């Protein structure tokens, strides 16, 4: 279980998170929605310790993440970055198998490569992509390689930052199914950021909406459509007018 209590983070005078409270139970799929620039990516980075929160407490299974032994802590996580963040000096398969080629999870090269190719297949990429360099791929393909890398070592907790942006509708469907499968079959805990309402409905057990630096609304995905919260309603229906200003 991941728990955030009163987490705040500012960059200079830009107060991004102003007291976030959120609980993500083990084995559940949480989807975080919210306007562009509201701090969703920063939120995930705070949990991973890539960004140090100014205040508040973040715990994983009751243990303060800031005090956790970094190596063991991070070994439990997989993360898909919004921009893919592939290592451009390494081939696609070496990116996917990064964890399997070094460190405690190290295994023989041929085996690591086979796993990488299998993960690539699961994100809809043919084995021939394995030997290309990231710069030779399209944006959507890079995103999927990033996804394959995030799941390659079968982590317990996976963060997906906009997994389907830049993908065609069919590929987006494949990815949605994959994320759902990872949660329900492998029992992973997932936090997904997305702007795609189809994805939200396909992936989420629970939904949380970040707005104004706090979690404005959270609840089971079924309740998202019927909640009377005007912010959520404006957001999920994509209305230009409402409590959320169009210019931010």
């Amino acid at each position, binding site marked *: 279980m991941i728990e955030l209590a009163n987490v705040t983070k500012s960059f200079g005078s830009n107060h991004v998170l102003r007291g976030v409270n959120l609980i993500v139970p083990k084995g559940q799929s949480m989807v975080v929605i919210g306007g562009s620039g509201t701090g969703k990516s920063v939120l995930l980075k705070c949990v991973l*310790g890539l960004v140090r929160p100014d205040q508040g407490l973040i715990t994983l299974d009751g243990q303060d993440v800031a005090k956790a032994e970094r190596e063991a802590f991070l070994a439990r*996580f997989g993360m898909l970055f*919004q921009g893919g*963040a592939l*290592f451009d000096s390494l081939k696609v398969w070496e990116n996917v198998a*990064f964890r399997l080629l070094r460190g405690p999870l190290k295994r023989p090269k041929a085996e690591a490569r086979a796993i990488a190719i299998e993960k690539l297949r699961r994100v809809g990429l043919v084995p021939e992509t394995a030997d290309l360099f990231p710069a030779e791929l399209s944006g959507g393909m890079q995103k999927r390689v990033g996804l394959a*890398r995030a799941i390659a070592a079968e982590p317990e907790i996976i963060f997906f930052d906009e997994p389907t942006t830049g993908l065609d509708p069919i590929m987006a469907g494949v990815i949605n199914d994959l994320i759902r499968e990872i949660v329900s079959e492998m029992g992973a805990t997932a936090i997904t950021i997305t702007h795609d309402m189809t994805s939200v409905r396909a992936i989420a057990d629970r939904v949380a909406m970040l707005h104004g630096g706090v979690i404005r609304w959270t609840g089971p995905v079924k309740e998202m459509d019927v909640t009377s919260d005007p912010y959520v309603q404006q957001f999920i229906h994509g209305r230009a007018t409402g409590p959320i200003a169009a210019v931010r």
Partner: protein
Amino acid sequence: MTLASPLAALGRPVLAALAALGRVAIYAGQTFGALFSKPFYTREFLSSLLHVGWLSLPVVGLTAIFTGGALALQIYAGGQRFSAEAVVPQIVAIGMVRELGPVLVGLMIAARVTSSIAAEIATMKVTEQIDALVTLSTNPLKYLTLPRVLAGTLTVPLLVAVGDIIGIMGGFLVATGQLGFNKATYIQNTLDFLEGADVVSSLVKGAVFGFIATLIGCYHGMASGRGAMGVGGATKTAVAAASVLILAANFLLTSVMFGS
């Protein structure tokens, strides 16, 4: 405007420079510490050896040969004024080995290697590749910095040695081809004159400059701001800082080793 403001204007950059130097020193300490704990990324180290050392050879060779040649011409012309033109082999040797070899190689490495390291790491920083490394349980200090700094510290002395030899050869070619020196005597004079301490000082300088060039490249890459501007800024600062530090270190090392 008060009387103190020119002083403040002078003091602020000095303080900032000292603070930066302190941060670099801490970073250097952390890098050194990383040497003694596992894992060691051999593949990254070998690739750094290739990029820092081997691929710098052409630049180093060309720089050295032209410098050695020009040095011979200058010493000959200058020496003629008090009929001391015969000292060309000795002065070329000592000038190359003690000063010009290490300094020029160091500066060329700052231009070639520091810039590429800083730009590469800064780009990794702004595209979240450094964050990705961390989440994949890999310490960037060990994976990126240590292999590069180690490669720089080990290969730049060798590059300096090569530069020294090629520089002396440049002087030899000009002196024997154009200034009428006897080949055998030229070589004999060079060998007789150079001492072990000269060569050692050259290599020590090379190691220090290689350390500085690679460490500063990594440091500024890691400290890069966001976006393309951040990468450009990091690269520029890294090359400038590495060059100045190399020249300052050269002065210090020369004073320590030859200052008595």
